[in-house]
Every structure is written in structure tokens, then in C-alpha cells.
């Protein structure tokens, strides 16, 4: 039991420092981001109708997840930041949904 506890402590306290700095992974992420930009611009040229907004937003979401997890190191960081981000996004989505309740059900 004692040993288990110690390993947990170790993981919680030091994960932020544990990831090794490397140029390669970040350059790969950048190439991925540029490719996604090219895809979103190319897709915008095709007439997708009502799907266009969804496709563009999904690509933007994927791009921001790359930036958040790798460039902002959230993937390697303390769990508490992910929980905070989750609460922040949940607040945003709740207000967005409530706004649309108002817009759709008014009159």
C-alpha cells in the first residue's frame, strides 16, 4: 500500500517536469496544423451546403486540440488544468445552448 501511494505521489507531482523537451514533435504538430489549414480551405471551395459550418468547426476543434495538448503542454501537464478547461468549455456550451433556446422558442 505504502509503495502504491508513493508512486501515485510521484506521478501527480512531477509529470509537468517529466516530459523531455524536443523540437521534432512540435515541428510534426506544426505540419499537421498546416495540413489541416490546407484541408479546411480546400473543403470551403466545395459546396457542402449546411454541412460546411460543421466541417469547418470540427477541423478548427481538432486544430485547437493539437495546439492545447502539444504547444500548450496540457497533455503533459497536471490533470487540474484539463479539469479547469473542461469546466470553462462547459460554461461556454451551456450559455450557447441557453441562447439558442431563447432564439428558437421566442414568439
Amino acid at each position, binding site marked *: 500500500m505504502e509503495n502504491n501511494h*508513493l508512486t501515485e505521489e510521484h506521478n501527480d507531482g512531477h509529470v509537468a517536469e517529466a516530459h523531455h523537451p524536443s523540437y521534432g514533435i512540435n515541428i510534426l504538430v506544426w505540419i499537421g496544423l498546416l495540413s489541416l489549414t490546407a484541408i479546411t480551405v480546400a473543403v470551403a471551395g466545395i459546396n457542402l451546403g449546411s454541412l460546411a459550418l460543421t466541417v469547418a468547426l470540427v477541423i478548427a476543434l481538432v486544430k485547437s486540440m493539437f495546439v492545447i495538448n502539444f504547444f500548450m503542454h496540457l497533455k503533459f501537464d497536471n490533470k487540474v488544468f484539463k479539469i479547469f478547461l473542461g469546466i470553462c468549455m462547459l460554461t461556454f456550451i451551456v450559455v450557447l445552448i441557453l441562447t439558442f433556446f431563447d432564439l428558437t422558442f421566442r414568439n
Partner: protein
Amino acid sequence: MSYNSDSSVQEIQEVHIHRDDFGSKMGMWLFLFTEILLFGGLFIMYAGYRYLYSDGFAAAATELDVLLGTINTVILLTSSLTVVLSIVALQKNNKQLSLFFLWVTVLCGLIFLVNKYFEWGAKFHHGIYPKGPALQNMSEGEVLYFGLYFVMTGLHGLHIVVGLIFIGYVMRQIQKDVITSVNFQKLENSGLYWHLVDIIWIFLFPLFYLIH
């Protein structure tokens, strides 16, 4: 007992540092969440008006220069990469390379702003600005679209300026060896801010330039 001795070892390790990197980072993230909600309110307003005036929004979006928007996207993504690379370089104790990457970031930020200047300038030239002559002949939806365009890209541009000042300050600190390979939280915080500004652009770009 074993737990106590482990935490006291941690304390000893932290005692001689006299700073709280974790607290500093958490403060930065909390600030970034207020920024997300600030822009979030504007995005919700965009969503609401887009829902109500989809035709006007579609018509107005064709006025924007997709090529210029794409170039600015590539510039901002590259500037985000160079911030991260500068952190890696400093962690590897390569001060000059770290500063070089930050110079590239600053250069990218400035090019972004110059592009924005020309973009807004062209709009002004065509009479598209708040209360401008071109807006008199437009539908309500188009006027709302350009209102949101100027407020959201303007606020974003302001964030670029603040980010550049923040990074400039950090570069000075690196130069003076205040920020070093073992004390780089300020550099990381300026990076976090810059990446957030990048993420906001990742959403502004398709919403204003791409979707017609």
C-alpha cells in the same frame, strides 16, 4: 511516516528555489479562461446573429479575402511553433537559439498586423466601416456581420499587440539571464498567452473567411 519523509524531501528540494512555478502557471491558465469566456461571448453573439441572418452573413463573407486570411493563419501557426521551439531551446540551455526563435515570433506577429492593416484599409477604402457609406445599402445581416468582424478581429489584433509586448519583455529577461534554463515559467506563460491568441484565430478564420 514514509509519506511524511517523502513530502519533506520535496520541501527541501523546493526550499532553495524561492518561487512557485506551478502557482504561476495556474494563475496564467485562470486568466486564459477569462479570455476564453470574453471571446466566447462574442462567438455566441456571432452564432445567434448568424442563425437569425444567415443570408446576410453569407453575402457579407464573400467580401473577405480568403488568401489573406489563409496567409495570416499560416503566419500565426508558425509563430506558435517558434514560441514552443524557443522554450525547448532554453530548456536545452541554448539561450541564443531561444532568442532567435522569439525574434521569428515577433516578426510573424508584426507581419500579421501589417496584413491586418492592409485588409482593414481596403475595407475602409470601399466604405466598409462602422457607419460607413457602403453599409447604408446593405441588409441588416451584412451590417451585423461587419460589426462583428471589426470587433472580433480588432480585439484579436489588440491581443496580438499585447502578446508582442509580453514576448518583448520576456526576451529582455532572457537577455539579462533572469529567465534561464532552470527558471523559464515566464517564457512559458507568454507562450500560453500567444497560443491562446492563435486558437482564437483558428476559429475566427473559418467563421469569417471560409463559410459563405
